[in-house]
């Protein structure tokens, strides 16, 4: 394995993995309760794609840069780790949404940021990460059409449009937090694991948000906690939901 690897790069990849995992989990929670059957299937399927990306990234982390031969149980240890200090997720993917409009807006904001993020690692010196980027982009192209299609249909309608704009005001500051540098990003940039710091693309993403939602002003980005080492209040309940089945019988072998 000639790919670079150190603690900083580990933090960098882990943050992407945790975001993908929790985003996938949150989307999947709409199964059975999305506004209509077809949407229910589509949204959960998108969540499933995100979980797939997370599994690939956790395997890179667990294998110190080499995902080959990492088994499911090792992935589960990372993905369902009960220790909150091990997590590096952004608060955007941790919070519970009050309804469908928020879930949809988060889906768009996250996927637009994710597109930039995958682009930055498309030529990564960490080969498995570059490969994951190619695979992810094939699926993300569809995810974006899904989110854009719904927003095209809903934004011009009175009630739905208002709900979506309210959700944008609520979620935008958290979404900006996605770009907060993770500890280790400097090392990831120095070793060519990523092409540039994520927040260098924040202005471009912000412009896209403005155009997409047709708004002149956006709320203040707020200050996301540095380094992604603190968890939001929503994290505990989310982790409990994720671990619910595991904890039914701690001794069971999966």
């Amino acid at each position, binding site marked *: 394995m000639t790919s670079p690897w150190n603690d900083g790069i580990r933090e960098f990849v882990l943050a992407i993995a945790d975001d993908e995992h929790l985003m996938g989990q949150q989307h999947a929670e709409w199964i059975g309760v999305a506004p*209509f059957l*077809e*949407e229910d*299937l*589509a949204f959960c399927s998108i969540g499933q794609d995100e979980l797939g990306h997370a599994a690939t990234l956790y395997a890179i982390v667990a294998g110190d840069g080499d995902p080959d031969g990492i088994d499911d149980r090792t992935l589960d240890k990372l993905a369902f780790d009960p220790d909150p200090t091990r997590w590096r997720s952004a608060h955007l993917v941790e919070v519970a949404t009050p309804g469908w409009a928020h879930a949809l807006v988060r889906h768009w904001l996250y996927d637009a940021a994710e597109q930039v993020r995958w682009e930055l690692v498309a030529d990564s010196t960490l080969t498995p990460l570059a490969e994951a980027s190619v695979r992810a982009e094939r699926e993300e192209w569809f995810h974006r*059409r899904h989110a854009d*299609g719904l927003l095209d*249909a809903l934004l011009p309608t009175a009630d739905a449009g208002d709900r979506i704009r309210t959700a944008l005001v609520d979620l935008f500051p958290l979404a900006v937090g996605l770009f907060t540098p993770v500890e280790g990003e400097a090392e990831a940039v120095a070793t060519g694991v990523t092409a540039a710091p994520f927040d260098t693309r924040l202005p471009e993403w912000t412009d896209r948000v403005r155009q997409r939602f047709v708004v002149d002003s956006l709320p203040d980005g707020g200050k996301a906690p540095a380094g992604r080492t603190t968890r939001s209040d929503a994290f505990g309940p989310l982790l409990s939901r994720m671990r619910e089945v595991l904890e039914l019988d701690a001794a069971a072998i999966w």
Partner: protein
Amino acid sequence: MRRYEVFLKKDGKDEYRHAGSLDAPDDELALVLARETYLRRAEGDRLWLVDRNHLVIGPPEFVAPNADKPHRHNDGERIAERRRRLRDLGEKDAS
């Protein structure tokens, strides 16, 4: 919401087959949702969506009256019967 009829086709000589229907607000979302509703496991290589409002539908009273024309049911039974008879005759002539 509009209702779309979904047709799928595998590459090769198979024809398009009706897979089911779905509800979507417009053509773009119908495409996106058809992919998840009917193509999750690569059930087809090509996809047609038809807005149900664009279907030409035959009313039942227009379709039904041909049910009483047995002469149009070419099941081959009468020709088979004639051939059997001629074959039997031929065999008799030969003996």
